[in-house]
């Protein structure tokens, strides 16, 4: 049986300080697409996600999306699936409302604990959502610290 856990409390998110860029084009940005891009930003964002995935043992992939459901980038290990960023945006949108049930004002993390591992989702600032696929044995404390170290880059991501 799959479980969904929203981790909330009343304190501000550790990522709240990071604010996103305003413009987000449609669709994913992958390594292949970025090779023809004018700006070097998309390539470096895929690299950033790849690096994050490699920094912590047990992480299988990463997705960066806008809060309104557009894909910005995904790690090279992830399938290019346009539905994923929309589902992540919807899940975070709902989880933020669910936080109110517990008296919380700010969503810190969403955890989907399922039979094939974990899906960990973080709001990044006010405009981005980061999701990581990980094994159930992943060191979540270390993972959180690594995500925090990348957060300012992700908060400013544009495809």
């Amino acid at each position, binding site marked *: 049986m799959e479980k969904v856990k929203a981790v909330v409390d009343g304190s501000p998110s550790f990522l709240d300080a990071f604010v996103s860029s305003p413009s987000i084009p449609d669709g994913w940005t992958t390594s292949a697409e970025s090779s023809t891009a004018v700006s070097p930003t998309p390539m470096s964002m895929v690299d950033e996600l790849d690096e994050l995935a490699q920094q912590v043992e047990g992480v299988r992939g990463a997705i960066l999306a*806008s809060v*309104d459901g557009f894909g910005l980038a995904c790690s090279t290990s992830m399938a290019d699936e346009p539905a994923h960023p929309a589902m992540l945006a919807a899940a975070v949108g*709902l989880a933020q409302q669910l936080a109110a049930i517990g008296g919380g004002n700010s969503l810190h993390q969403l955890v989907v604990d399922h039979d094939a591992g974990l899906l960990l989702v973080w709001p990044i600032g006010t405009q981005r959502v980061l999701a990581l696929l990980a094994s159930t044995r992943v060191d979540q404390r270390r993972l959180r610290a690594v995500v925090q170290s990348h957060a300012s880059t992700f908060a400013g991501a544009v495809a």
Partner: protein
Amino acid sequence: MSQVFKILVTGPFAAGKTSMIQSVSQTKVISTDVMTSGEESDVKSSTTVAMDFGTYQLPEGDVRLLLFGTPGQSRFRFMTNILKGEVDVVAFVIDAEAFETHAAAGVELRALLRDLRVPAVIAVNRCDDPVLARRLARSLGALDGEAAVPCQLIDPDSGREVVVEILLTLLASMESTNIEVA
């Protein structure tokens, strides 16, 4: 004891679904609005990413509507699929002036009604003309028996006119299936 009915409020992006629920709900609306980005930010500044939820109860307290609003963009279609279960009436909201949305909206409306087999009310937003509202609803594929309501959904009174049509539609549906009204 009140009878509870589930109303699916759906339609294209920026048609007025959230406005309708906000204008008529008697309880605090649960909304999942976030800032829009890209081309959608040229249309409006915020959008629903999961659902809206509001309620409306008749003064007598014997009928209560639960209003479930969907996102409008096709990338969030999975939310409509989640929310459409056990729906009693579809309130399909369309912006009369957003002509570019009408063709896809017609396809969506027809598919939804074929799937759900429940009555629909077509709320034609930004429209004051009943004849135009009826014509637009028919162009979307609405049947003659389905109500088309011209409305201005930023106005609560106008939103309540849509609710009245929903209630009348529910009543007609119950009478046709011989379900006793509480």
